[in-house]
């Protein structure tokens, strides 16, 4: 089988969207959340109550940028799967084929990316408003 045909098969039914891939976006959210929380917790456990949060601010901002970028990459990859097999406006994913399952998981993962991005943005908000360890 040629590489192209293999690639084609992988795209239509393959492991590109198994369950591990579906949970990628929320996992990115979880890691972003943990980094934000741990950065603040570790800094403030040692520092004075009035200590400025600048290092945490920059950590969270960097983590947010990276997380959103990673989610964007996931979306980009999924978008190709989705677009490739979207037929009309059929979003019910009711057919009994591996391709349909593939498309379905891609769609779920795509929507999870949106939710995860919203989650990442929400979690980034506190450092915009709070600037000390108080």
């Amino acid at each position, binding site marked *: 089988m040629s590489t192209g045909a293999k690639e084609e098969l992988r795209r239509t039914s393959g492991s590109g969207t198994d369950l591990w891939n579906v949970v990628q976006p*929320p996992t990115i959210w979880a890691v972003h959340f943990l980094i934000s*929380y741990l950065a603040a*917790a570790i800094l403030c456990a040692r520092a004075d109550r009035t200590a400025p949060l600048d290092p945490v601010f920059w950590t969270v901002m960097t983590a947010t940028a990276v997380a959103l970028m990673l989610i964007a990459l996931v979306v980009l990859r999924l978008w190709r799967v989705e677009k490739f097999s979207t037929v009309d406006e059929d979003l019910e994913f009711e057919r009994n*084929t591996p391709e349909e*399952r593939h498309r*379905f998981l891609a769609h779920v993962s795509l929507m999870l990316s949106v*939710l995860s991005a919203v989650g990442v943005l929400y979690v980034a908000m506190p*450092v915009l408003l*709070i600037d000390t360890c108080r």
Partner: protein
Amino acid sequence: MAAMSGDPQDDPELRRAQEKRLSEVWAQPQGWRYWTAVNNSEVGLWYTATSFGFMFFAGVLGLIIRAQLAVPDAGLVSAETYNQVFTLHGTAMMFLFAVPIFEAVAILLLPAILGARDLPFPRLSAFGYWCFLIGGLFVTGSIFFDAAPSGGWFMYPPLTTKYGGIGADIWLLGLSFIEVASIAAAVELIVGVLKCRPPGMHLNLTPLYGWYVLIVGGMILFAFPPLIAGDFLFEMERAFDWPFFDPTRGGDPLLWQHLFWIFGHPEVYIIFLPSIALLAMMVPTFAKRPVAGYSFIVLSAIGTGFLGFGLWVHHMYTTGLPAVSLGFFSAASEAVAIPTGIQIFVFIATLMLGRVERSVPMLWSMGALAIFVAGGLTGVMLAIAPFDFQAHDSYFVVAHLHYTLFGGMMFPLIAGIYYYYPIATGKMLSRRLGIWSFWLLFVGFNVTFLPMHLSGLLGMPRRVFTYPADIGLDGLNMLSSAGAAIAALGFLVFAWDVLRPKGEADAAERNPWNAGTVEWQLEMPPAPWGARSVPKIESRYPLWDDADHLRNYDEGRFYLPDAEEMQRETIVTSVLDAEPIQCLRVPGPAIVTIVAAFLLGAVFILATFELYAATIAAGIGALAAILYWTWTGTALHPEKPAKDIGLGVTVPLYLSGPRSTGWWAMFITMLGDLTAFVGLPFGYFFFWTIHENFPPADAAGPGWVWPLVAGLLLLGAWTATWSARLLNGRGRVAAMRLSLAIGMASASAGIAALAAGPWWHGMDPTAHVYPAIVWALVLWTSLHVAVGVIMQAYCLAGSVTGKLTPRYDMDMWNVSLYWHFMAFTVLVTVLVIGGFPLVA
């Protein structure tokens, strides 16, 4: 699939013979041996009934609470009794009802919903049930001896470490035991959804209940273990005075709060999602159309499953953590409302699109919606930290949590019971009584809990056995108590409906609600075999979409229509697309599971009373029972390599490695175990953050030499075990045995070396939290390695006796997998205790 010429299933004689064989194979044992049954239909029923039993018990405790609080300064029960009553009310409702009822209902329904004969590990389900029963009776029974836990259901130290009495030990050990049962059920259910779906049920065709069970199972796996780690630390403090939560010796009470709520908040979703799953099955049936937005439900269930782990600190807003930390959790707590809301809108959209049939389950579902949306909205308020500073630990929170639990769990559950009662019993519940109990409970519930929002804001803290007369709380509390009486009446009507003797008039016809999902293919009353033939699935609602489905099912034209070898069998399929890959033989009735559960129960109960010699004896007994069980009941050699399961498909009867159910069960169990372990290094680094010097500069440490030696020996044992699997696979049996023996020796020496570090440096775990947490890591890892040595010995014995061969090597695969996890555990332990002090 319709009748083809020459299909043997055309022969009615053959079909009758098949049915006879199936009935015989799947029959329940008679007489006292009935209790040795392991069929999911029996175990699920006992499990459900027992959970409800505990619920009624806890409900009575709730009524005592309301009676005491009906008027100010009442003296119905003493303060001490009241504290036991409310602690046990919360504990029993959460640990003995809300979580187990998920397992109970899932064990009962999941095989039917997946069209399977049974779950992959029926004896494990039975074992879990007996553990649950013993642990539950132990915890609840304590109140009759005035020895119940009295520190609140979240057991905050130091109150519970310093003053708890035996009640705190009963709570810790009794519930740890039940948590083990929960994890067992989670493993069973996850493997069930991933591997036991009927052929053709691609992930996108899986009933939503299956998705929810999968996600909730996964959540249990990551949520319960931190509590087990917490329980471990807590019990070490209570029994042996290791000061994890004692601030005078470097400990911190907040560590428990973190570990408890890392469990405790996901638990809310562990309770809520399975009940919403019942709604997801019912709403399409009564709307008479497919659910609108299947993928939205899957999205929101997965999203909730993840976000649910980022909320735990919202139970700790008032502990003085930095505002910015509260901010992160506030944000995540608001974010989780989005996926939760999506599910509700999917149901509403389905109702809008359909032509709704107004039935009793639908009535309860609408009630659930009304209550749950209210509870969700107060949740959105509470997520805002400054508001929570007022509402936290007040009756506002009591009201909020009851709204979410009644709306998110109780009402959907009762709806589900009205809906699924025929599948469990073959009878219908009464429409009239259903409506009566609904209105009584709905009105009673709201009259009880709506005023509590206000009592909380008027300054009534929770967990008070009384309140003064002059601060505006009298009328509200009287109202709440009156409501509780009405609600209790509603429960009684419901209980009467469920328990009343039912005659022919109540018999259910087949598929009484005209549903579309495969569980309704069952004969009424249901036959013992679970499924006459395991269907080939082509759509989400086969009963609606395929007019021939029932006939094909009845005439055995799907898979596995027979039990020629007189063995209990079900089909194992692949994870993503459910292609049949194995015909799994599942075990039948057994007494060893009950013996094992009772002995393990004895371990926990005897430990409560500090009878350590007896504890160890019971532990050895439990180990022996479990070994006997696995040796005689698992990885049995089939009489032939493969079997024709119908429709021209032949699959193997024995699988090992990642395609087998056993491997997945081990993998999932160890994922949970690893999560529990992570709780310990989390504790270590938690202490590091709160102390200026950690490890303390002047404290003795384990050094780096012994940990290094231990690490090398234990990683050697891992390599040896892995090699043993590879050697065995290549047929080099002698080398495999040698490798296992080396592994055992190396592991045993590794345990000694691991303990040698803290031992030779004289680390006293009662002196300070630093030696205590080091010893905790060493103890945990050593115990796990010791279990690994037993597993190695098991494989060695199997190889010698011919149970384990190069062809039948499932045990070797699973043990090798266990050791992969051990390698990680050992690495972390060694790096933390030996390596971190060098860089700190």
